[in-house]
């Protein structure tokens, strides 16, 4: 897993208050599940399977995914792309559905929101700045994203 400076700043602080501090600690453990070989619940239908650990975002052709850190509230999303099977590059993050006092980031909101579109576009820009012409994985074939080296189940 590769993480951007933006995601790193959330994980490492400094934080404005204890709510942010606690939330960052929980997020770190949730992200760690990806690298520990945990059996990940993944969803290939955008915004479906609310309990999935990861889900592909709309449009599927973009290949953007989010990792969902739900607890405690506010739920957070880390958005990014796969560089290779099992190699996720987390580029941006945002609160899922409610405004959070400790960040100026607006909630991503409903699936057709401007915030969702914006964060995917921002991730695409970040990707190009980092990896230039190297394209992320796209499409709806789960085996393109996850190898059989790591356990996962589609929900």
């Amino acid at each position, binding site marked *: *897993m*590769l*993480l*951007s*400076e933006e*995601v*790193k700043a959330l994980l*490492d*602080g400094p*934080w404005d208050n*204890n709510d942010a*501090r*606690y*939330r*960052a*600690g*929980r997020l*770190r*453990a*949730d*992200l*760690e*599940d990806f*690298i*520990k070989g*945990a*059996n990940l*619940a993944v969803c290939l239908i955008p915004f479906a*399977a*609310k*309990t*999935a*650990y990861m889900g592909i975002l709309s449009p599927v052709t973009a290949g953007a995914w989010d990792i*969902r850190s*739900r*607890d405690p509230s506010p739920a957070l999303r880390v958005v990014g792309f796969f*560089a*290779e*099977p*099992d*190699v996720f*590059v987390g580029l941006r993050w945002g609160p899922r559905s409610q405004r959070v006092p400790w960040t100026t980031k607006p909630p991503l909101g409903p699936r057709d929101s401007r915030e969702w579109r914006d964060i995917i576009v921002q991730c695409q820009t970040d990707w190009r*700045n*980092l*990896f*230039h*012409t*190297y394209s992320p994985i796209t499409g709806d074939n789960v085996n393109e994203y996850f*190898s059989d*080296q790591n356990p996962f*189940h589609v*929900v």
Partner: protein
Amino acid sequence: MSTSQTKTPSMLYEIAAGLPIPLEKRAYFHARVLNSYYQYVLQKFIEEEQANRLTKAELARRIGRKPEVISRLLGAPGNWTLETATDLLLGISAEELTPASVPLLNRAPRNYKHSDWMSFTQLSTNPPTRSDINWKVSITKNPLELRKFSGTGTADSPIIEVTMR
């Protein structure tokens, strides 16, 4: 490229030093333990399901929950409690959780030494391939600056640290 290296304090610094443990680190371990219990129970269910010995509906019947609740509980740990894990394990495999713990300190360090691709010239044009993965988590700010997570836990329970190069 700079060859200097700055190491941030260990994830376990305060624990090892007997200092007050920061909230974010306690939160990290809260989620880590919860996620571990979830993974343990989930794996038990998958084993039973793949052997055609159990379905979510049957599990729901056994522990007096609605099937949709079972789907939610097995989908993510959410607000799991010890009671949740106990019920699920009873219903899945007729087992009970037993207390166990492992020391965090003085574990053999993990070897997450980076591979050759971890130079900016390569990273700037080529993301890592699976065959390169002798590492776990990395952070990039831009192609000219690379920060790398390395682990200091055990093989089955990594603890993340940050090193810079």
